[in-house]
């Protein structure tokens, strides 16, 4: 059995308006990550990562016995924001330490600080990254004899490059769209839709039961990723084929039926295409006795970190309140895609994520420890 034994998260509900870019938009931003970035000596993504790099946990990891792997689920092989564009933007900087923007180099440094010497690797599965690597976590621990896998995940979401790319694609919610449609971020809603981009990070530790010296926060029961038959590498099929294959693969891997799942943490970007694809997939695969939520309307789309980070937030909410949080800004009463905080039935948690490049990931957790 594999347990999620430790995690640290960083995220913010507060938003800032970035005006001096081609697609002005609100973002969930830790303003301090950009302090002195314009000198080229401070790198905002690393400042974000430092919010979860708990020295005490890392020191503790150095002393734990067994074979350990380190995975940096970075979403991309190179952190996106060199920010060469839009020199007048307050997000502009020209970082002088190029090697440190390479994700595998950064992974090596952090792994070293955690005392990990057995395997260091990265993952570039875009916004599915942190959930996708859970398939690797299972493989490493079940097939390759690893006792522990440390997963760090963050990206560089608040950067000129990402905001322009997402703005061009009309993926993130721009000021112009908000004014035109009179909407605020939400998911699976007829009135509100869309997301703000958000900074977020998660550091987590998965351990085999054979080396665990404390109860985990949850068991990692299964993880599976899939692609779909598509000619559009940045789009989603309306029928949700990719989500369906990921969910079914995940259920099959742990020999569970859909009715054993009581909570779904959706990818839940709130875009019209994701609303349709994910809802169709859930309608097809799931039975009626589950509730679904999305954290992106609350904390923004933290890209590669989102899948695992949001799962940890769900575990926090269940532990603290016993309830699954409602989807923020939901305007319609709905017993499934929640409009109110709801106490779920006892059961498994299904977490979903999707990433550009046609990747869909699912993971099943059991919070009953």
């Amino acid at each position, binding site marked *: 059995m594999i347990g999620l034994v430790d995690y640290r998260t960083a995220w913010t509900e507060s938003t800032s308006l970035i005006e001096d870019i081609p697609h002005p938009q609100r973002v969930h931003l830790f303003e301090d990550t950009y302090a*002195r970035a314009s*000198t080229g*000596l*401070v790198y905002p993504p*690393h400042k974000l990562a*430092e919010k979860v*790099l708990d*020295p005490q946990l*890392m*020191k503790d990891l150095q002393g734990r016995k067994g074979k350990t792997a380190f995975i940096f689920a970075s979403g991309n092989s190179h952190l996106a924001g060199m920010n060469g564009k839009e020199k007048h933007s307050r997000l502009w900087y020209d970082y*002088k*330490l190029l*090697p*440190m923007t390479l994700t595998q*180099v950064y992974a090596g*440094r*952090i792994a070293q*600080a955690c005392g990990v010497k057995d395997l260091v690797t990265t993952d570039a599965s875009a916004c599915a990254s942190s959930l996708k690597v859970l398939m690797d976590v299972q493989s490493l621990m079940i097939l390759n004899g690893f006792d522990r896998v440390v997963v760090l995940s963050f990206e560089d979401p608040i950067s000129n490059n990402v905001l322009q790319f997402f703005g061009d694609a009309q993926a993130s919610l721009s000021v112009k769209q908000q004014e035109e449609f009179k909407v605020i971020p939400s998911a699976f809603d007829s009135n509100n839709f869309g997301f703000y981009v958000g900074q977020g990070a998660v550091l987590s530790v998965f351990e085999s039961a054979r080396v665990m010296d404390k109860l985990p926060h949850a068991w990692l029961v299964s993880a599976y990723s899939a692609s779909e038959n598509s000619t559009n590498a940045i789009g989603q099929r309306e029928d949700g084929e990719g989500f369906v294959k990921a969910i079914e693969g995940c259920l099959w891997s742990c020999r569970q039926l859909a009715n054993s799942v009581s909570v779904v943490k959706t990818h839940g970007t709130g875009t019209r295409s994701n609303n349709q694809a994910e809802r169709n997939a859930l309608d097809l695969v799931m039975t009626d006795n589950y509730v679904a939520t999305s954290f992106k309307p609350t904390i923004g789309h933290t890209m590669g970190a989102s899948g695992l980070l949001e799962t940890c937030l769900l575990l926090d909410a269940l532990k603290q309140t016993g309830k699954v949080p409602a989807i923020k800004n939901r305007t319609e009463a709905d017993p499934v895609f929640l409009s109110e905080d709801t106490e779920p039935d006892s059961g498994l948690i299904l977490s979903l994520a999707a990433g550009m490049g046609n990747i869909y990931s699912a993971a099943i957790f059991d919070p009953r420890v």
Partner: protein
Amino acid sequence: MDFLELFNEVTKVAKPVFADQLTPIADPLTPFKETHVDSLDLLMVVIYMCEIYGVSEEVGKNAKPACVAELQAFLEEHKTKEPASVQEALGQIQ
């Protein structure tokens, strides 16, 4: 200002975590390969030091110090400014 003290403080900025637990380098002639300063740390430290001493990136790229004393000699040769204190220097790179 004690250059060795400055070097040890700048090294802490370069290290990702546990910076406060590093053993300071005591002898400026100790080769870096015998210390906790690895090649990436050194790359970062040189860039930080060039910023502090007003050495251009173009010139700074030629710095290949094997120990603290060699880095100090390089900076003395190419500097266009000098910090008044360690605190002032750190303020420029953090």
